[in-house]
C-alpha cells in the first residue's frame, strides 16, 4: 500500500475528531474526540517515518502518546472535580471559570 492511503485515513480520523469536539457536549466524550485527533496525527507521523525510513517520526508519536496520557489524566481529574461539586457535566452549561 502506498503511503498516501495511510495519510488519507489519518486525515479522515482527524476531521472526525475535530467535528466531534465541536458537536459533543459531554466533556468525557470531548476528551475522547481529542484522543481521536491525536491518533490521526500519530498515524500521519508514523506513515511519514516509514516513508523516509527514519525513526524520528516514531519517537515523536511516542511523545504524542505521553502528552495524550497527561491530558487524559488532567481532563478526567477535572471531570471528577466537576462531578463532586454537583455541577452539570455539560460543556454548554459550564461557561464560567470562576469557582
Amino acid at each position, binding site marked *: 500500500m502506498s503511503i498516501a492511503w495511510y495519510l488519507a485515513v489519518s486525515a479522515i480520523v482527524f476531521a472526525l475528531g475535530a*467535528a466531534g469536539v465541536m458537536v459533543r457536549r459531554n466533556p468525557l466524550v470531548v476528551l475522547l474526540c481529542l484522543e481521536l485527533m491525536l491518533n490521526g496525527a500519530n498515524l500521519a507521523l508514523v506513515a511519514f517515518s*516509514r516513508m523516509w525510513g527514519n525513526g524520528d517520526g*516514531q519517537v515523536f508519536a511516542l511523545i504524542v502518546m505521553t502528552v495524550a496520557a497527561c491530558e487524559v489524566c*488532567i481532563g478526567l481529574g477535572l471531570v471528577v472535580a466537576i462531578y463532586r461539586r454537583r455541577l452539570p457535566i455539560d460543556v454548554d452549561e459550564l461557561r464560567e471559570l470562576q469557582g
Partner: protein
Amino acid sequence: MSAALFFVAGFGAIAGAVGVVMLRDPFYAVLALVAHLLSLAVLFLLLRAEFVAAAQVVVYAGAVMVLYVFVVAYVGGREDRSSGIGQLGELLRGRGPGGAQLRLGAAILGGALLVELLIALLGTGLKAVGGAGAPYAPGPRAFGTPAYIGQLLLTRFLLVFEVASFLLLIAAVGAVVLAGRSRTIGGRGGIGEDGDGTGRVLTPLDLIRPHETGTMAEGVGARK
C-alpha cells in the same frame, strides 16, 4: 495480503472514530475508541512500527482506556441530552442556534477541514507519498523494533525522554490535586485554599508538599 489487512484495519479505525462521535452513551463511545485504537495498532504494524503498535495496545488501549471506563462508571455515564432540560440550557438555546444547527455547522466545518487536509496531504509535490516507503530489511535491530527505538530514545532524544517523564509526574500530581479527597470538595476548602479552613499558616514545606496531595502523613491522619 497487506492490502487486505490495510483495508480491514482502516475501515475499523474509521468506523471506531464514527462510533466515538455518534454514540450517545459515553460508555459505548469509550468501547468504540478501544476498537479504533486496536485497528490503529494494526495500521502501525503494517507501517513497520512494532514498538509504537505494542505501546499503543498496552498503554493506550489498556491503561488509559481503563481510566476512562472507571471515570465513566463513577460519574454515571449520563447520556448527552439533545434538548436542554435545565433552565440554563433553555436560556442558552433561546439565544444561540439550536442543537441541529450546531450539528450541521460542525459537520460543514469538519468536512471543510477534511478537504483541506486531503488537498495538503495528497496534492503534495512529494513523490515519495505515492510509494510504499523506504527499503526495509528485517533483522533484530531493524527499523521500528524496540531495540531501534530504545537506542534513539537514549541517545538522540534523551532530553525529550526525560522531559516526557517529568511531564507525566506533573500530570499525576495535578490529577491528585484536582480530584483529591472528598473532604475539601463541597466544603470550604478547595484548590489553592487552606484545606481545613483553620487559617493554618503556609510553611515552606507546603511548596514541596502542597496540602491534600495524598502524602503518607495525611493518609494516616497525622498531618491535618
